């Protein structure tokens, strides 16, 4: 039992528990929905179980596990933890700003890749991602440029000429 004043680490720990609780609720909701969805899959006279039985078994077990996890999580949480959750999540995201930015760049890269083609899209992605992460010194910027060329145009050439795999060429 905590007797002293709450530390930032304690609050972060509780926020983590709340986040896990929310994930259990989401898993319960999705598995319950898909459990019923699987029930509507047609059966066959040749197959005792049909296409929906195994998914029903899996989603049923998943829903029960999520329910048990929710009960366990609710027993250990203080009501105040829910109130602190929003602020703690924002703090968590702020501390991981590089992760958020990298994921955003990755998403844009995947969306643009089929349109722009592998080499140009990858070149821009690599430059942007490396610029986001690197300490800005002339030498590191030069290395980043070389890496961007090698892993975009070079990789495309390697896969096309050695492995006969043709990466997306773009729609423009």
């Amino acid at each position: 039992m905590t007797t002293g004043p709450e530390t930032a680490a304690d609050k972060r720990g509780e926020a983590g528990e709340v986040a896990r609780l929310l994930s259990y609720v989401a898993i319960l909701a999705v598995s319950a929905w898909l459990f019923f969805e699987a029930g509507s899959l047609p059966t066959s006279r040749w197959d005792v179980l049909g296409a929906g039985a195994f998914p029903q078994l899996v989603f049923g077990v998943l829903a029960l596990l999520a329910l048990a996890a929710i009960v366990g999580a609710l027993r250990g949480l203080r009501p105040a933890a829910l109130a602190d959750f929003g602020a703690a999540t924002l703090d968590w995201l702020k501390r991981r700003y590089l992760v958020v930015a990298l994921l955003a760049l990755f998403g844009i890269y995947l969306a643009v890749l089929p349109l722009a083609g592998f080499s140009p899209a990858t070149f821009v992605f690599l430059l942007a991602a490396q610029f986001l992460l690197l300490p800005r010194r002339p030498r590191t910027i030069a290395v980043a440029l070389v890496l961007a060329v090698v892993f975009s145009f070079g990789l495309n050439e390697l896969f096309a000429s050695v492995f006969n795999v043709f990466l997306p060429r773009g729609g423009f």
Partner: protein
Amino acid sequence: MLDSLLLGAGQIFTLSTLVFMFLGSIAGIIAAAIPGFTVTMAIILTLPLTFAMPPLQGIAVMLSVYVGGYTGGLISAALLGIPGTPSAMATTFDAFPMARAGQPGRALSLGVWASFFGTLISTAVLIVAAPPLAIIAVKLGPWEYFSLIVFALTIIASLVASSLLRGLMAGAIGLAISTVGPDPMMGRPRFDFGVEMLAPGLPFLVVLIGIFAISQLVSEVEDARAVRSGTALTTRDIDFQNWAVIREIVMRPVNLVRSSVVGVLVGALPGAGGSIANLLAYDQAKRASKTPEKFGTGIPEGVVASEAGNSATAGGGLIPMIALGIPGSAVDAILMASLMVHGISVGPRLIMDHADLVYGMFIAMVVASLMMLVVCLASMRLFLRVTEIPKWAIVPAVIVCCVVGSFALNNRVTDLYLLGFIGLAGYALKSLDYPLAPLVLGVILGPIAETNLRRALQTDADWTVFLTRPVSLLLLVAAVLSVAWAIWKHKKSSLPNETG
């Protein structure tokens, strides 16, 4: 057997295979030497490069990466005190103090030779154990197979997860992912909701790359300060003293053999790979030692136990994969998937239908361990530089390699969107402390479990047959016991907190 051995050897001892295996060894060592980059990720990145190769050549290259990877983690563990891979965790306990005490060469040599002997011992066990086990496994019916998969998923959940419930949920999520797309018996579409990307099902390799590689890469940039700085290495002259080290290991064989056996057994358990084996082997060595208080101060027994233990899981993990078609770890699941990409069905009949391939794999393991030894001893000083590669350079480049690997599998752009979604979901699950290994095993074992369950009930619609067939009952009891053991372990570990 001799014919198959010679056929397998004929395919391994070709110039192209040996060259690719040599490159694989180097790639495995380099990848694992970089802190934060696991053996699993190295294998994932190698996979697309093997699509164009014949099946045995492809798997031989991946085995070289595998064996090299288990040793590569030693470099940063010994010199920086940072395990290159989770399987080198216990190596830091003694190799790092030994290196700090002015003997970095001895620490590295001990680790390399212990890894070499550990891999050889595990390969010998694999050659002896896998064929008879496969003969027994062929006689198993769908009831036993389904129960075996239930056991595999419960034991992995209980071994790798900090919370048993989250471990079991991760396994069930993996099974759920495997139900998307055509059902494995009748080909009836399921859960595609009219979305083209979901109609053919979720390709296992894309799920694997997203879950393991993307989530790991993204989490590598969580600490902004560490990303933008480099870590200095001990790169002064290193004396390897090979003969003295070999004598040191061979003169005390009990520690080596015990640690290797621990590695083989842990490797053979589904889901329990090198990350558990090195700690367990180290713990056993400490318990058996007359001077346990010296462990952690830089003694050779500690380095040997950890490195022999983690390397021996390579052979151990292949036993259930070859004999039963059940991967022993995420890496074995990728090896299994690479065979499936070539249209080879992995199961107990593998050794009967493709004996040359299996015996070729045995030979490849021995060759790979020899190559690892040669590469490490000849160029260890060069590999030391690898740990200096900054994250800002390597993370985006490896993300691009993941994109290429995902696309090369089916030449489908929609697989890339899937990679993005799954990478994001993988990072979320990782951040929420869900273990990823049960999830991946669930994805690969899902269709096998479903097919066997439906076959079992087609033969006899009575569910109690699962409990009346002795082997099936034994496996289900083992599954229940593994869950009970995990609950007991959890209660035991939380007891001091409650009373204190």
